[in-house]
């Protein structure tokens, strides 16, 4: 088990590092020049001034040198020049070209909002999806099952941002059902935190639940055909215990795997959710950073965070799989 965790951690680190290098290289070999906006912000931008700023920012150095400086900054404080000198405390992810603030600090400030949206949405979609999927499997072939499968296909055929936008316009703006939607830190006011995130959670949850309902239904239909389900029925257990005690216990394993693999989709959903509901999280920050003039340090940091989250989620899912399936544990 320890060896397994160590191996997985190593490969996780490798994935994050490679992602970081890739994004770094892409940006510096790309057509944009980060010195441009900095230069323009200081008045008329002559080629000489542009060159000087490039030099100050270290953009004239090779990509490798710059990446090495970035990596060093993760462990020791460094000085970054972006239209002026900034000290950037380790772990330094750079200075935002837009706000001229330390990226690490802003990331830490925005991350709780993103985490709140993502965890709340994922909890809802897992709970709703797994429950409805199990029930559909139990009643497979009936009208209820067909309605569920059909409804789920319908919802998932609508692009997510459209769904979220509609929910925002109709439920929040026209019907005024969710006043005060937005982010309040949990530590400040738990009630405002929950009520402000309720609509985003529901939208993210409902949209995501449809596909989990289908995954769960599929896994469950298969499981309910297994011999040990007949055994459970032959013992005299109630149908509810048979389906949720014996069936779901086995069917949940593949669903968990998909959840891990699908982490990227959850993050994408979170980005749109933040944007549409005006939540000041990492997602909306990343969207701002993409817009010209591109804010590379912010972009780099948010992509890195995404990579870390995906990798960690997969690790957690693998470990959880071992808890669910004892055959994995002993082998």
């Amino acid at each position, binding site marked *: 088990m320890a060896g397994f965790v160590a191996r997985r951690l190593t490969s996780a680190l490798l994935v994050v590092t490679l992602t970081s290098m890739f994004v770094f290289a892409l940006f510096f070999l790309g057509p944009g020049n980060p010195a441009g906006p900095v230069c323009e912000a200081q008045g008329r931008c002559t080629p000489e001034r542009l060159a000087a700023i490039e030099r100050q920012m270290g953009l004239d150095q090779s990509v490798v040198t710059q990446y090495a400086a970035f990596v060093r900054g993760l462990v020791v404080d460094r000085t970054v020049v972006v239209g002026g000198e900034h000290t950037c405390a380790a772990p330094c992810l750079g200075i935002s070209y837009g706000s001229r603030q330390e990226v690490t600090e802003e990331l830490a400030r925005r991350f709780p909002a993103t985490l709140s949206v993502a965890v709340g949405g994922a909890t809802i979609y897992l709970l709703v999806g797994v429950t409805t999927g199990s029930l559909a499997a139990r009643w497979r072939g009936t009208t209820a099952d067909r309605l569920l499968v059909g409804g789920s296909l319908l919802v998932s055929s609508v692009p997510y941002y459209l769904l979220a936008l509609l929910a925002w316009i109709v439920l929040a703006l026209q019907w005024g059902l969710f006043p005060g939607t937005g982010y309040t830190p949990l530590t400040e006011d738990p009630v405002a935190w929950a009520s402000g995130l309720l609509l985003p959670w529901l939208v993210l949850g409902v949209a995501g639940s449809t596909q989990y309902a289908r995954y769960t239904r599929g896994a469950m239909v298969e499981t309910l055909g297994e011999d040990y389900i007949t055994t459970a029925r*032959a013992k005299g257990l109630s149908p509810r215990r048979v389906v949720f005690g014996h069936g779901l216990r086995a069917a949940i394993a593949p669903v968990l795997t998909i959840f891990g693999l699908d982490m990227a989709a959850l993050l994408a959903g979170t980005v749109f959710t933040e944007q549409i509901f005006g939540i000041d999280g990492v997602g909306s920050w990343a969207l701002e950073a993409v817009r010209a003039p591109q804010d590379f340090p912010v972009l780099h940091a948010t992509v890195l965070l995404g990579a870390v989250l995906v990798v960690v989620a997969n690790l957690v899912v693998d470990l959880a799989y071992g808890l669910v399936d*004892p055959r994995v544990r002993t082998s």
Partner: protein
Amino acid sequence: MTSAADAALAVRDLTVRFPTDAGDVRAVTGLSFTVRPGQTLGVVGESGSGKTAAATALLGLHDPRRARVTGSVLVAGTEVVGAREPVLRRLRGRSVAMVFQDPTSALHPFYPVGRQVAEAYRAHHAVSRADAAERAVAMLDRVGIPAARSRAGDHPHQLSGGMRQRVVIAMALVNGPAVVVADEPTTALDVTVQADVLDLLREVQQETGTALVHVTHDLGVVAETADRLLVMYAGRAVEAGPARDLLARPRMPYTWGLLQSTPDLGAREERLRPVPGSPPSLLTPPDGCPFHPRCAFAETVPGGRCGTDLPDLVPVSGETGRLRRCHLPEDVPLGEGQVGP
């Protein structure tokens, strides 16, 4: 024959059909038998003869959306056919329990075996988890699992096939059911442990006085343990009677053929002969006697009746408790070399 009243299990005219797009699969047709407490009925037939479909109906386990079950199954006096789920739930495991063919797939892979036995007990007894666990350990010990207390915490994959089947037997017996249905309980096991499991079944049956329905494709498995035998062919009973009489003198060609294909019974090893041909489709069973396409005697019956009329299951004259379904006159000998081409 016993009356339905003092029987642990009384089956009357049991019919199981599976509707498919191509028509109904007639897995079981008009099956009747009774089993008294402490008695063992061996149900024998080739693979595909409807044994599992019949056994499944004894616990009311068929999905009503996929199987049509008619007739009557009385377990300790309670009707199973058409019973509602709550009634079935009280019967299953408590009055009638099942030992399945493959213990590997019959046990839940993710739960410790002790817990699975305890759960069967708790389904019918209002006891604490701890008491049920104790009861499960005692039961595992009873079925011969060494170090039962620590083994109870094992998952099925940590046990051998024979041990797993012992767990399944413990699970079936934990509530002291009136009837145990064992569907090919040794078929999936290593030959070396088959005899042990058979001995165990017989032992606990004698101890508890439960009625046992032992379903198998292998006549040899039930030859010694069954009190009565029922031979199934194409979903129907074709011969039934006290095991010893039936084995000593089969009264219709299919039973005789089965004996010839079973080691240590009808034939010496070097003369083993499987029944030629293969069983008919239950979707489109042949007219007349279902065995006639394979029967060497069909030609000898006057008027070609074997191919047109289904013989009734009728008592054999002069022998108590024996039934046969065959047009052949009773005095025709089914001697050596007379079955098969």
